[in-house]
């Protein structure tokens, strides 16, 4: 019996993993070979997907990217342990994977995401077991001392958020997981939900135990149907295994989880908008205060964290705050699952300690552009993140270093553009996206974004360029300081960074781009 792993991750499925599975089963049957196929998550080496692995006496041997036509020769090579042109060697030894520090994603792509037993066999539930032996104060101390900050983008210290909820008295409290990962260039939440969903459940359960909440919601965007299925299956499996429900692990604690699906509104990734949506209303942003920690879901104290924040918790509880805090730089402790995307050779998930520079990520780890043209601009942090020119590639991946150059690391997505990019067009897109996705509650965001699109159009048409550039700058300042939430408040980052670092693109559309369009 050969045990073969083929990822069920949406990125692998999108490039033919399901077809490879069907072909493997067919080819094995015709040859009379007995195989067992396990649908693991993705290890995040996306250019090698579908990456198929074979369990051997030494360890798992990887092959990729596997197409349907490769399957017969692949099966021969697997049966005979012979060479194959797609053979990558031992999966764990692939340099791109080996140079990472996988704390949160340690199991992703390794285990069967439907199996609690596999999760346990790879160190899962140890964090929860330790948490159950501690007082809430001791858990809070660990979370605080780990230095973990919100991985959704805002970077707020998780320990302080949890303590606020723990210290607030109420008849009911809630744990809410923000899985509305709408930023382009980000997919870490999706990957962990599809590849290691139990770690999210475990992190949320620990949060519930700590603050005294017995109910949690995972709000997943509708664009992630595979993640919705994976999370629901994992919740059902966790209930069967006694990891959710009444008296978790034989303790006095109860905790239940429910998945709720978004409906295509980007702004619902903003925490107060998400809470409104969960309550069944329009995703209008709430003014703060009151903080969700005091008055959150259904008016009750609520811990609302990103998927990656919850997913970091089991490691911290299992290995101690110091083991996590030992990684990183400055006030950015631990690791960040960075997502590399756009026009690059080697895209995927790269979890590493804070402090790696943008240049290392783009030139070294991404391997440059797949069009083999020079890198011109790099957007970090999604549609609300700044565009970086090569001159700023020495910026270390760190919350404060990014803030210092009018940018944000956000949810850790990096999108690389080559030299054919028109930065005025990207600035227009940023305004346009904000205009479409604005919840409409505050004027700077609702009106400013639309006026921004119009003004950029004038600039691109060569109408009174200097005056209109001043209008854009003024609009950006109004939006930055006058908006209620990050959508209007951060849209100026991509716009202003494009203006500042790529000013040559603002003016009548250059001929080279008209030709390209």
């Amino acid at each position, binding site marked *: 019996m050969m045990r073969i792993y083929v990822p069920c991750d949406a990125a692998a499925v999108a490039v033919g993993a399901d077809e490879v599975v069907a072909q493997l089963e067919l080819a094995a049957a015709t040859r009379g070979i007995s195989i067992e196929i396990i649908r693991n998550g993705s290890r995040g080496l996306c250019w090698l997907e579908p990456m198929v692995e074979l369990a051997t006496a030494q360890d798992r041997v990887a092959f990729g990217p596997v197409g349907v036509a490769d399957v017969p020769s692949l099966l021969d090579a697997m049966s005979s342990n012979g060479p194959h042109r797609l053979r990558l060697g031992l999966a764990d030894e692939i340099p791109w994977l080996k140079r990472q520090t996988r704390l949160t994603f340690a199991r992703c792509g390794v285990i069967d995401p439907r199996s609690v037993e596999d999760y346990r066999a790879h160190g899962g539930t140890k964090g929860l077991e330790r948490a159950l032996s501690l007082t809430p104060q001791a858990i809070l101390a660990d979370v605080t001392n780990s230095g973990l900050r919100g991985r959704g983008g805002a970077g707020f210290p998780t320990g302080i958020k949890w303590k606020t909820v723990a210290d607030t008295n109420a008849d009911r409290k809630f744990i809410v997981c923000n899985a509305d990962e709408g930023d*382009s260039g980000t997919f870490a939440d999706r990957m962990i939900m599809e590849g290691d969903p139990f770690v999210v459940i475990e992190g949320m359960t620990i949060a519930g135990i700590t603050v005294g909440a017995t109910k949690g919601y995972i709000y997943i965007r509708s664009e992630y149907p595979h993640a919705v299925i994976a999370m629901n299956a994992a919740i059902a499996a966790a209930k069967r295994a006694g990891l959710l429900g009444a008296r978790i692990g034989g303790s006095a604690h109860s905790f239940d989880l429910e998945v709720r699906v*978004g*409906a295509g509104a980007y702004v619902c990734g903003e925490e107060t908008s998400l809470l409104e949506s969960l309550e069944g209303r329009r995703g209008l942003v709430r003014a703060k205060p009151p903080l969700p920690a005091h008055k959150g879901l259904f008016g009750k104290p609520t811990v609302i964290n990103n998927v990656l924040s919850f997913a970091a918790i089991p490691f911290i509880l299992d290995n101690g705050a110091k083991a996590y805090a030992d990684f990183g730089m400055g006030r950015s402790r631990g690791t960040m699952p960075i997502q590399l995307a*756009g026009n690059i050779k080697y895209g995927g998930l790269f979890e590493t300690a804070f402090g790696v520079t943008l240049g290392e990520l783009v030139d070294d780890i991404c391997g440059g552009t797949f069009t083999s043209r020079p890198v011109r601009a790099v957007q970090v942090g999604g549609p609300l993140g700044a565009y970086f020119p090569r001159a700023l590639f020495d910026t270390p991946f760190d919350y404060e270093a990014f803030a210092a150059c009018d940018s944000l690391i956000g949810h850790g997505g990096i999108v690389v553009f080559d030299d054919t990019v028109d930065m005025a067009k990207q600035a227009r897109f940023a305004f346009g996206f904000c205009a479409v996705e604005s919840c409409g509650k505050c004027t700077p965001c609702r009106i400013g974004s639309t006026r921004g699109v119009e003004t950029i159009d004038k600039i691109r048409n060569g109408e009174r360029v200097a005056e209109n550039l001043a209008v854009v700058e003024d609009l950006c300042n109004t939006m930055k300081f006058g908006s209620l939430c990050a959508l209007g408040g951060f849209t100026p980052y991509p716009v202003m960074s494009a203006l500042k670092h790529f000013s040559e693109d603002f003016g009548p559309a250059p001929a080279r781009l008209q030709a390209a369009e």
Partner: protein
Amino acid sequence: MTSPSEPCFEPWDQQRGAEIIAEHATQEGATLVILHALQDAFGYVPEPAIPMVAEALNLSRAEVYGVFTFYHDFRKRPAGRHVLKLCRAEACQAAGGDALAARAEKKLGVAIGNTTADDRVTFEPIYCLGLCATAPSAMLDGRVVGRLDETRLDALVAEAQR
């Protein structure tokens, strides 16, 4: 090879609508849950369902209508036989998505955001499928497709038109 399953929806039926609403109405904050369930069953949210949802949840019609219109996902009328969503967000733009969008528009004969005249294909933009490292990407009736190039896009469009 898997092919996208033809979306199969029931025609609007008030009795069936009432059953779906009743099934979910007891959940806290059920509005989105119910709207999703209605759309899953009928392919869109039929207008007569709005006051029914309002009554079941003790909300005003305006409140339910407001929720229905706020979210991009909910449809006022049925989509075409197939729904092709092409990612138009930054990572896919960087990977050549603009040219592919223009090519698909030309092949389908409609601008993105519209349904073809023969009602076969609804062609929509989507802002990120989370497949950014295998960009450009698309979704045909719920099936995801990545690493699009002209050949793969043409095949996808042809499949949608069948």
